[in-house]
Every structure is written in C-alpha cells, then in structure tokens.
C-alpha cells in the first residue's frame, strides 16, 4: 500500500477520470437500505452507503420525559446522532461531543419541516441514529435512515427527506465524497431535501467559489433525487411483502 502523507498532498484522487474507488465524479457509493430491522422500535432502518453503516430507530409519538419539555400545540422531535467508539480508525471516546451535538441539531432541523408535529401535541417523536461504521457522510446516511424509519413508524409526513453530500477534490466537484476525499479534499457540502426540491439541510466547509458552489449544489440535488427513489423502493418492497403475507393469512382463514 502506498504511504499517505499527513497533508494528503501526494494523493492523486483521479486515475483515468475515475476516483480512488472507481467511481465517476457524479456517482454516489453503493447504497443499501433495509426497512424494519429492529423489533422493539416503532420504526427502524439500516443504511449502508459505501463504508458507512448506520442504523436508525424511531420511538413515538410517546409521552415526553422530562415533562417540562412538552409543547402544548405540537409534538417535539428529538434526534440523537451517536457514533460507536469502534466506528472510526482511532477509538472515539463514547458519548456525545460537540460535533455530535451540532449534527444532532441540524439533522433534527432537516427532518422536522416534513413531520406533522401538530397532530401530536404534548408528545415526543424520538429519533436515534447509531453510526456503527463511519467512512465520511455519516450525517447524510443517518438522515436517509431516519427518514425511512419515520415512515416505517407511520409518522405522518409531508414527504420523505433525502440527503447527500457534494465535495471538491483536486479542483473537481464530486458527489458523495469518501473518507480520503473528505480528509484531504478542498470542500464538503452535505445537503438534505424533499423530493420537490425544498432544502432542509445545508452545511459547507472548505473552499468553493460561487460558481463551484452552484455546481456542487446541482450535483448534490441530483444525488438526493436518486437516493429518494431507492428509499421509496425499500419501503414499497417491505410493505408489499407484508401485504402478500397478509393475503396468505386471510386466504387460510377463509378456507
């Protein structure tokens, strides 16, 4: 294996127009979505995106504890983004840190606009996201999983939320940066949006000119649209399957 310099200056991110893992600039990593993976949760979802493995669970609407947090006119939404200590190269100290507080806040704000919180006054909808393995893009993977888990829990929503990042490496705008591109790249910009193009999460760090920013935005939006289709399919698949099982049971009862 080639040694990687500390600043990544000697990495070549492209080989014959393809990225380190063989993707084109506008491709995201293989995405796998599984619905209803946890028995106790009201809704759950497991997402694998490249090297990311993320699991989301939804509990609620349920009673708020502590009670002083409850709102008289709507449900509150809580989102907890948590990284397993073994999910990264260097062991992460367990428990929340400043990064996870910020990610929890923006992820919650990415989902809240589509949840009909006014249907459930004085209650809470809890979303728990556990990052089991991290490889850049865990917040977007978490949001994708959480959105499917909310649907799986039967929480009334205006639409799904899909999330994806765009970045800049070696002066090229790329979709869904992986670890090396994130660490040594020039910019990272995660977004989340509804299928109708309303943006609910937007973060950016690094260096982008206005033109690069617009191109990154277009690319990330395209990524979100494709991810939305996969999310949708995964839900339809699960509930179709449930539907056919139900039909078998009903048939047996008639006989």
């Amino acid at each position: 294996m080639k040694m990687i310099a500390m600043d990544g200056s000697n990495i070549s991110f492209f080989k014959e127009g393809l990225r380190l893992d063989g993707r084109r600039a506008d491709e995201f990593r293989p995405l796998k979505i599984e619905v209803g993976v946890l028995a106790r949760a009201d809704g759950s979802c497991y997402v694998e995106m490249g090297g990311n493995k993320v699991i989301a669970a939804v509990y609620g609407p349920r009673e708020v504890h502590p009670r002083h947090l409850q709102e008289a006119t709507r449900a509150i939404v809580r989102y907890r983004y948590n990284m397993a200590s073994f999910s990264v190269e260097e062991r992460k100290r367990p428990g929340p840190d400043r990064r996870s507080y910020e990610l929890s806040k923006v992820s919650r704000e990415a989902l809240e606009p589509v949840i009909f919180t006014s249907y459930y006054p004085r209650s809470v909808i809890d979303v728990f996201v556990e990052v089991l393995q991290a490889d850049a893009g865990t917040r977007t993977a978490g949001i994708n999983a959480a959105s499917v888990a909310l649907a799986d829990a039967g929480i009334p929503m205006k639409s799904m939320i899909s999330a994806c990042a765009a970045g800049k490496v070696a002066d090229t705008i790329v979709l869904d940066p992986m670890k090396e591109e994130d660490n040594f790249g020039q910019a990272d910009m995660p977004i989340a949006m509804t299928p109708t193009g309303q943006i609910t999460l937007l973060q950016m760090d690094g260096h982008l000119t206005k033109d690069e920013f617009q191109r990154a935005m277009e690319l990330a939006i395209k990524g979100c649209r494709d991810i939305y289709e996969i999310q949708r399919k995964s839900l339809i698949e699960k509930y179709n399957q449930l539907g056919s099982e139900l039909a078998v049971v009903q048939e047996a009862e008639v006989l």
Partner: protein
Amino acid sequence: MTNVIAEIKKDYLYNLFLKGERADGRAFDQYREFSVERNLISKAEGSALVKLGSSQVLVGVKMQPGEPFPDTPNRGVIITNAELVPLASPVFEPGPPNETGIELARLVDRGVRESKAIDLEALCITPGKQVWIIFIDVHILDDCGNILDAASIGAIAALLTTKVPASKFGLGEDYPLPVKDIPIATTAIEFGDVIMFDPDSDEESIANTKLTVLSTADGSICGMQKSGTGVLRQEQIYRIVDIACEKAKEIREKFLEE
C-alpha cells in the same frame, strides 16, 4: 429555549415585510451599525468588543504552548468556545453550553479554520512535542439578534490584535500573530419568501429558517450552515449567497478602515 413574541407584533412585522419595510427602517440587506473596540482586556493576548446594533459580543484570545494532536504533529491548535451567559438574554440559562452555543462556537471556529486565516504550521514550536494553542473564547454580553455575525467579526478582530506571548514562556520575543485572511459570517433569515440580513431578535424569533454564509477576502465561500426548522429553495440559497458575499466585502472594508 426561544424568545416568545406576541402574535400582534408578529402580524405587525409581517405586514411591514410585505410592504418591503423593517421595524427599524433598514433595507432587507442592510446591516445595523457596528463598531469594534480592540484590546480592552489587557490580560488576554488579544480581544475585541463588537457592537452590532444593540448586540454586544466580547471575544478574548488566550495562547499557551501545549501538545499537538497526534495526527497533526507540526500544526498549532485552535480551540473555540462560546458562552451564552444568562446576563445576555432572558432565555439563556446557566450551565454547560447547549446546542445553540455549541453550534455558534463551531461556526466561528469553521470561519477561522476553513479560511486558513491562521497559518497553523507557523505555530509549531517543536514538531510532535510543542505547538501554540489558540483559545478563542466568545462571550455574549447582550443578545439583540444575530450574535453569530457579531461573534465572527469579534473573533477575527481579536486575532488581528493578538500578540503571541513567547517571552512569558521563555520562547523568545513576543510577536504579532500572523493572520492571512479575514473570514466574515453573514446571516440571513427567510420569512414568507422575504430574505433579510442581520436579523434583530424579534425578526429572529418569527423566522424559522436561517442561513449563515462564511466567506473569505477573495469572494469565495469557506463555510455555510442552514439552521432552523424551515426550508429553503435552491434559488433562495443562491440569492442569499450572492448578497452575503457582497455584504461580507463591505464589512471587511469597513473593518480595515477602523
């Protein structure tokens, strides 16, 4: 905790916005008057008090030698912290920083870090053993809206006045901290398709979407953050970014004049 605002006031403000006006008579992209007072804390290596309208934010910079992070043995360290102390607003509570405070600190930090305003390699004393650690501490004194932009101005102003306290630690003569860029945060809120910059606290409490753009002297973007439970359309974001970069330029120019 959020500010509570009377429905009647909300209505009043909204009707003003529809007419293209704001309660204090500003244009939608107009900032409140701001001033920067430098070096008023002599115990700190650098400090700045920013007044943006009635909002007041004090930023202090302290420096000391310490160990580098294992993955960056030859680079200095920046640690940014924000205190939303209860004296600054009826909705701030004592105790450890909440997510609003953490987000604010991380955004101020992102501006300084991603703009590469500080040459961290120049802050290495002995590679792998000793580097300079810069503590940027943001103290909110009076929250009358848009404390983030005030804090970002304060941070870079304080860094520009910072003297590296080398003599105190037997590391030679004191020297001014080299600063290579002036990152500026510009924040806009969206409310019923009205985009408004530098919101005061009433405006902040009726809008549910905020977008902060951090930009550098060359007019490019070094950071962005949407916050709040609303949504933004693509063209709204582009509009905000365009105005934000211009406003940042104005602020930067005013800043250098002083």
